[in-house]
């Protein structure tokens, strides 16, 4: 009887450690939001404060129909349609 109890103790201990390690591994490899290193461009915390598109371009017209203009560098925009 004592042998069975000891074996059960070891069994539970091993299973607990394995479960912990598997859980840790899954969390470590799950998808995470992009968090750039401090000091690099693209910190998501600052994204909401970005100025609108007009601040980047030089008078580019994205909506006016049939317009042709000579501009500086065009800023392309992607957002679905």
């Amino acid at each position, binding site marked *: 009887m004592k042998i069975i109890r000891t074996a059960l103790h070891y069994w539970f201990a091993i299973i607990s450690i394995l479960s912990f390690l598997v859980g840790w591994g899954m969390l470590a490899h799950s998808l995470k939001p992009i968090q750039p290193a401090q000091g690099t461009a693209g910190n998501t915390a600052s994204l909401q404060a970005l100025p609108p598109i007009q601040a980047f371009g030089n008078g580019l017209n994205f909506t006016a129909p049939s317009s042709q203009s000579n501009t500086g560098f065009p*800023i392309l925009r992607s957002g679905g349609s």
Partner: protein
Amino acid sequence: MVTFSFRSMNTDILLAADGTPSRISEGFKETQQFIQASEGRFSRFSEQSELSDLNRSAGAPFQVSPDLFAVLALAQHFFHLTRGLFDPSILPDLRRIGYDQSMELIRMRGTAPLFETLLAGERPSFSEMDLDERRRLVLIPPGMALDLGGIAKGWIAEQAAIILSEYSSACAVNAGGDMFMIGLPNGEGQWPVAIEDPLQPQNNLTTIKVDPGAVATSAVTKRIWKQGDKQQHHLIDPRTGESARTDWLSVTVIASHTYEAEVFAKALLIGGPLESEEIAHKSGTQFSYLAVDHDRKIWGTQKSLEYIYVR
């Protein structure tokens, strides 16, 4: 760089090119003609389009143009590659949830009617479409109707950029956020592309810098309408036949081809965080993605971070 914008395919088209003004004007004209002719070929909203002819031919072989055949072959390829998350045969579901005419007309109409007789899922699988490459014959089974909207738009943008590149040293064609870029603008090492905030479309969320190639975005916040009390959007989850319920609001994909970027943006948006990594790995296609969630957090692979460039 010279730009030229106009409306086509129910979206804003922007052409941009470097080069001599007279050549660029000529290039803009030819590119615009190509885009407008392609719209006439691929639009599901025009009864005279080749796509509408194909949809009416369901049940009998139908010979199509080389352009339509090329897009159908791509659609078949990506249907299998995304394990059905990209599926152009969801047109009956789109109609059922109220997207039965162009978005401009839907917005004028207000609330879409309810079609209670049509149940989701009552349609043949897209895998039943049969393509005969030698004779360019297409056989779609009775009950199937195709909407090539996104993939056709991506394909048209890329082909249009190739046409424009004949007249310019560097150019880009942006069809409502699906774009293809050839060469590099004078003095620039990459193309800057602003990513729109899906919750406040007048603002940008970030700017990425990419090499010549393709960028496309799919969003659930753009083509939306009411059907009864229910809010619908145009991205159908082929597994349910309903507007996809997603954890992400938009997905931007950077890839080699615009049709590829467009297809994977749609598939990842529908698949969400749980399926995106698997789709990206198993597709065997090189692409990166940036997904925006309801809190405006940006998700993606570590490689995606390399593209982010904020002024």
